[in-house]
């Protein structure tokens, strides 16, 4: 059985769904970061897979560049997110995102 772009898109969609599930269900900031990273890595699978199967979906080789961009963005988000988590942990002594309160700084 040959692998087509549809297979890759199905896998990418499933990974995106798992990441979305994690973003909604995880309460701790660290788990939320991991879920966000999974969400961001789903397009990497799609772009790299499309490029591997038939030379690229958005032009010759461009899929690889977009996949690399997604990986860099994912790493940047994780780094800045981890720094924010460390800052919030120092201020609030908690990793529970519900404990961080609203935008006005009021604790729930």
């Amino acid at each position, binding site marked *: 059985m040959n*692998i*087509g*772009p*549809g*297979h890759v*898109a*199905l*896998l990418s*969609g499933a*990974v*995106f*769904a*798992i990441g*979305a*599930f994690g973003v*909604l*269900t*995880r*309460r*701790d900031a660290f*788990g939320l*970061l*991991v*879920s966000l*990273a*999974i969400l961001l*890595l789903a397009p*990497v*699978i799609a772009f*790299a*897979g499309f*490029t*591997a*199967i038939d*030379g*690229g*979906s958005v032009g*010759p*080789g*461009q899929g690889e*560049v977009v*996949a*690399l*961009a997604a*990986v*860099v*963005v994912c*790493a*940047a988000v*994780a*780094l*800045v997110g*981890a*720094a*924010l*988590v460390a*800052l919030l*942990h*120092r201020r609030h002594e908690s*990793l529970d995102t519900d404990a961080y309160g609203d935008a006005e700084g009021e604790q729930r």
Partner: protein
Amino acid sequence: MSAAGFYVAGVLVILSCAAAVLLRGAVTSAVTAAAVAVSIGIFLLVSGEYLLTLLELVLLLATLAAVVEVTRRGGFGPRVQPLPLSRWVYGLGLAVLAVVVLDGAVLASRGGWFRSGIKQGLGSVLHHQAPVTAGLLVVLGAAAVVVAVVIGRTSADEAEHHERARARREREEKMRRRREDRVAARRRRQAGRAGGGE
């Protein structure tokens, strides 16, 4: 891409992602996040994207190491909360919606949305076709490191404050232990006197 390689890599990716989302604990999350990075690396390897695999593994594992270092210093482990069951409903709802919208669209289109192109290596594309993009990605990565260090660093006054708080906690603990020892000694003396009187 071989069918066997795709299915093995696909199953590994799905399992590692599910484990990262479902398992609790800071250490477990870090290990499963590393598993996600490695499994996606295996998928890219199966796809024949060798340079992308190398960049992906190096970038993600280095980032994870930095995040774990921050976690280790913060001592987050015991503070990670268990999963509240009420959130499963919303999470499952969104996950099902994502699967229906994304995978449903793929299944409905039957591959009609895909067009062929010419295969080129990532190195060649970055060098000849997307040098500006490559430069921007390097700048973005460097900026992220700088911003993360600026946000997450402990300033001198903050470190001093933490040191004072730690010293105060130690002092209070020592005083509490001394108080408890005094109370225990008094009780022993009273018990001894009561025993001698009889």
